Each structure stands twice: as C-alpha cells, then as structure tokens.
C-alpha cells in the first residue's frame, strides 16, 4: 500500500461526500450533534485514506446516528404487543435499520469503554497522533533531503550536525538535512511493515492454533513439533543470517519472514485457550445442535478470545518493530531513506554518540519509536473492556 498518494485533495472531497450521508440522516432525525461528528469523522478518514477510509466510516457513523433515534418500539417484535398483533415479516429496510442501530449501540458502548480507561485512552491518543503525523504530517512538512549550511561548515569538521534551532526545530543531521522532516516521513514504512508482520503472525497463529486444538490428533502433534522447532531457533541471529542471504528490497518479504518466525508462541497460547474453551458447556451445546466446526470456531470460540488475540497482535507488532529497527541498525536491510531505523544507524556510525550538537539525530528517532511502542502497550489496556460486552456495559 502506498500511503504517499493518500491524504490528497481528492480524499478530502471523497470524505466530504461520505460525510454528507450521516449528516443528512442525522438532520432528518433531528439529532444534529452525532451528525456533525459523523461528518467530521468521514471527512477525516476519507481525507486520510480516500475511498478505503470514507466508505467504512459511512457505515460506522450512520450506525451511530441511527442508534440515537431508533427505539425498540420501532420493532414490532420488541413491543409488548400480543402475538396476533406482531408482524414478524419486516421489510429489508427495517431490518437494515434495526441491525445498524444495534451496531451503533455497540460502537457507542465500546467508545465509552475506551474513554473510561485512562491509560488505554492515552495510548489511543498516542496512536492517533502517530497516524496524523504519518498521514497528514507530510502535507505540512515536505521531505527535505537537501543539505543545509554547506557554506557554514566548520573548519576541519567532517559532518554537518547541528543542534535544534528556530528554523530547524530538531536540528540537522550529519549531511545537514532537516531531522524533523525525516521524523515525519521516516516512520511510515517502519510502521506499515511492523503491522503487516503482526497481522501475518496473528493470522497464522490463530488459524493453526484453533485447528490444532479442535482437530487434534496427528495434525496437532505435527503442528506442535513445528512450533517447538521454530521456538528453539534463536530468532534474531537467524534473521541476521537470513538478511545476509535474502535481499529485503521489498519490505513485505521482511514482514512475511518475521511472521513466519513469530507465530509459534501465540499459536500455542491460542491452542491452549481453544482447548479450554472447547470444554465450555455452550460449545458442547453447539456440538449437540450440530452447528458445524466453522460456526464453532468463528462464532463460539473466537469471540471469547478476540481481545486476547488483538492484544497479542499488538505485542507482535511491537516485537516486529524492534526486530526491523535492529536489523536496520546492524545494516542488514537495504536502506531506504527517510527511515527512523536508518537515522539511528547513521547517527551512530557518523559519531552522533559523541557530540551534544548531534544528539537530536539519535534521540529523535529513538523517542519516536519508544513513544509509538508505549502508545501501543497503553492502548491494549482498553481492549479488554472494549471487546467484552459485560465490561463494556460498565458492570
């Protein structure tokens, strides 16, 4: 996915058009406030990700808008009418509205749960900050790969480091380039690759873990043997060796490799959880009702584990990010500038460790990575409450 092309004026237009949908519905329902919020949400996400951001946001915001005015009385089923008075056939539109309202209520409860947990909300804000920084930052701060201050190069100096100044808030790097612009432009590839690796890890781990636990037998033994085998390999040294053999010109291959190495831990945890969930009475009831294995996995077992899975995915993302930065730092991955990892590598190799002037070149990307990681970890604190209907209700 090339995010460079996103956050365009077209996106702004798409976002505005999408935003009209919840706005108009809200105005017709006389609930302007959620309508305006919905418009802004659509505008922002359309701006950020074009159609990909705008269309899903229409669904979410419309659901929330509808949930404000939809009362249970609109559904004959929920009224206290007698059987003869109830019309069980509902039109397609009525069903869509009813489902949307249900979705909207869930979203509202989930966002209330998100705000309620202070640490989690802080993490969420941190993630939003990095999202904005990476998507919208480049529009405000263009990439600056030009050396500055050639003329003012000090006598005998071998580099152009410079501390923070009014013109360059984070200072200049060894080539005299603006560090702030490198921070703004240099996180995107790293974050995308880490997220890809985390998602790949999770998908492999969840599928294999569930299959191993529910089908069992020989397959279970084989999968466990593979998992144990991978777990015994020292991961990072192997990555370093592989990086020497394979060229990671395309970072996606790096994500795949990280995913292939990282799944066993989560797979074993998922397997253990599914094994224990399988014993639950409601899963047994689903077997007795002959609801089928796909239903049992997707609807009975996984929903219980969703927060656990997402939390672990976030930890995988975190681990992948460390691994990538580590590989870049060791110079094992082809450099593509701007990149936080490359900044750390160059900072160190160009002697930024030994000069106060140059501290910003090392500190800025290190702090950026650390803050992103902290936001991720804090954010996981909320997830339990966001996903669990009981906690969501604030009981």
């Amino acid at each position, binding site marked *: 996915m090339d995010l460079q092309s996103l956050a365009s004026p077209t996106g702004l237009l798409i976002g505005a058009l999408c935003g009209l949908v919840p706005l108009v519905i809200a105005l017709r329902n006389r609930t302007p406030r959620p309508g305006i919020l919905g418009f802004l949400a659509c505008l922002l996400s359309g701006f950020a990700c074009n159609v990909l951001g705008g269309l899903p946001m229409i669904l979410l915001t419309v659901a929330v808008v509808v949930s404000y005015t939809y009362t249970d009385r609109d559904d004959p089923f929920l009224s206290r009418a007698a059987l003869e008075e109830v019309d069980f056939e509902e039109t397609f539109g009525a069903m869509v509205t009813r489902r949307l309202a249900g979705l909207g209520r869930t979203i509202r409860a989930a966002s209330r749960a998100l705000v309620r947990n202070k640490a989690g909300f802080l993490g969420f804000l941190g993630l939003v900050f990095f999202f904005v920084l990476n998507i919208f930052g480049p529009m405000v701060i263009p990439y600056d790969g030009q050396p500055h201050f050639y003329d003012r190069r000090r006598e005998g100096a071998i580099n152009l480091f410079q501390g923070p100044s009014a013109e360059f808030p984070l200072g200049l790097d060894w080539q005299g380039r603006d560090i702030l612009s490198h921070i703004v432009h240099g996180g995107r590839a790293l974050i995308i690759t880490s997220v890809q690796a985390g998602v790949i890890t999770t998908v492999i781990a969840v599928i294999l873990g569930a299959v191993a636990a529910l089908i069992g037998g020989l397959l279970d033994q084989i999968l466990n043997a593979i998992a144990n085998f991978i777990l015994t390999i020292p991961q990072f040294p192997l990555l370093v060796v592989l990086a020497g053999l394979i060229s990671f010109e395309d970072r996606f291959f790096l994500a795949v490799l990280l995913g292939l190495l990282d799944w066993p831990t989560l797979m074993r945890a998922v397997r253990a959880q599914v094994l224990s969930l399988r014993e639950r009475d*409601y899963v047994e009831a689903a077997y007795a009702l002959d609801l089928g294995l796909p239903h049992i996995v997707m609807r009975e077992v996984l929903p219980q584990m969703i927060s656990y899975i997402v939390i672990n995915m976030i930890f995988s993302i975190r681990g992948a990010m460390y691994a990538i930065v580590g590989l870049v730092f060791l110079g094992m991955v082809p450099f593509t500038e701007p990149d936080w990892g490359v900044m750390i590598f160059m900072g160190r190799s160009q002697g930024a460790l030994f000069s106060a002037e140059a501290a910003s070149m090392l500190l800025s990307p290190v702090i950026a990575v650390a803050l992103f990681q902290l936001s991720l970890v804090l954010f996981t604190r909320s997830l339990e409450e966001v996903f669990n209907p009981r906690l969501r209700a604030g009981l």
Partner: protein
Amino acid sequence: MGDNGSSQPLIELQNVNRFFRQGRTRVQVLQNINLAVAENEILCLVGESGCGKTTTGRIMVGLLEPSSGEVRYRGRPVNTLRGKDRAEYRRALQIIHQDPFASLNPAHTVGQILAFPLQRHRMAEGRGGVRRRIWELLTLVDLTPPGDIVNKYPHQLSGGQRQRVSVARALTVNPRLIVADEAVSMVDVSIRISLLKMLHRLRDEYGIAIVFITHDLALAKYFAWEGRIAVMYLGRIVELGPTPDIISRPAHPYTRALISAIPEADPQITRSKQRMVLRSEDIPSLLEIPPGCAFHPRCPFFVEGVCDTQLPTLEKVPDGSQYAACTPLTRGQELRLYGS
C-alpha cells in the same frame, strides 16, 4: 429394560463402559450400563456426585463415545449412522447443562443464540419465520414478553432465565429427548418448581422424552412420578424401576439408604423415620472400586463370601416390579443385618 418391549426404544445403551485416562492410570467411570429410554418417557438418573451420571448423559446424546459397548438410536447403532440419518440423530438428542452461567455464550444475545440453530438447520422460513419462531420459543419457556429478553446478553439474565434460554435453544431443533443434567440444582429454590413444571409441560405437549439427572432423590420422586428411576452407584446402575415402586418399596440396600435420608415435609414423620445406618460413610474412589458389589464395604446387609466376591447383575426383584443388582436379594434370600 422390559416395560414396553414391543416398541423400539428411542435411545438405548448396551453394555456401555467408559474410562478416562489420567496420566498413566485408567479411571473406570462407567461399567456395563444398560439403559433404554422410550419415546415420551421420563427417566431419572439418581446417585451421589461423581458416580457417572453426567458421563452417562453425555454418552446418551452422543457428545462422548463409550469406551466399549453400543449406543442405539431407534434400534440402529449410532456409529453406523451417516449423512441425513446422523444429522437427524444428533438433533433429536439435546442436553441442558447444570451451570446456567456456563451454558450460554456470553458474546451473543439471546436472539442470536436461538437464531443460529434455526438458520443453520432451516427450521424456519426466511427472516420473518426465524423471528416468529424465536418469539414462540421464548413464550414457550415462559420468557415473556419476548421483546424484553431477545436483545439481552446472558450476563443480563438471572440463573433461572438462562436455564429457560438453554431449554429454548434445545427446542430450536425439535428434539425427541432432552437430557436435563442437574438443570435446576443451581437456580434458586423458588423457581425450581416452575422450571420443572415447564419441562413437564414440554413433555406432554411435544412428546419429548426427558432424562432427568439429579443427586436429589426427593426431586426425582417429584419429577419422575410417572416415569422410572435408575439409581447409580460408582459407575453402575444398582436399581432400575418405576418411580412409585422404588420410592415406596426400594429393593437395593443403597436405594433404601438414600430413601431413608429423604427429609419429609412433616417434621413428625422425619423424626420418627428410621435412618438406615451404613457401615461406612466413605465413598470409595473410582480408582479402587471394591471387588464384588461395589457397595459391600458400606452395606449393612453385607454377606461375607458372596457380596465381596460375586459381581451382582441387574435382575428382577422377586416380589417387585423393579430390577436390582444385589446378589442375595435377587437370589431370593432375606436381607439380614451384617453381624446379627
């Protein structure tokens, strides 16, 4: 077991054994169980906790396979059933679990819980049909008005309401037999009776057979008066017969002990009632089941050289309608207190 020999039983366990592995040891949980349930019958499984009632129930509905022996559904061994027959057999047998807090998936609303089987097995026509059926089912289990329940999550319901939802869920597939495993033991005493009445009504109206599992003989007496009782002890059936006979004229010493321990509503009777004194109160572990009759170390009527060596078989009691597994008794000897 005899009482309506001509018609095919709905479900039948023949010489069923079941063991579980715990590490290297084998725990023999069920031994030589023979049990048949007819259409529309009420059968009560009674016994102390740990004697294998739940295991029997799970084997009956096909959630567990016997280690040896055979399960027959309408006369056909269930492991030979394939395709449509197998699907029909699975759906015909449903189970209500003991713990109302574990039997419903906390992630789904009541409406979803009921809709899944209805949609999967096309038990209703279209969306409207599914909604109508959900309404009917909720009304059937006395959860009215249905609109107040359908969008609730299980954690928003009481224990009794959850058990009703469990029953409604079992009814979605029009079962022929419901195994109610201690289904009321974890709900408030005040709503037990109404739950039991509801189960009775479902049996009468829909011809469903009910296997009612309980450790409480008083409850069995109340619930299964028109049916039969099977008394279990350490993985075996020790007595089987029509409820009134078992309650009024228990044959097996273990059943007698259980009945003598039932408190009567009238305290006068309770006090004057003679409690049978066992030789030991300890229930042996399943890991070391006593040889011969498993009850003999506790039995007040223990006969040396017979009970501790010969495995009793379930046979007709000489002057009763029930079957009992007690060697001296079925041989027609009079039971005498040990040592007297």
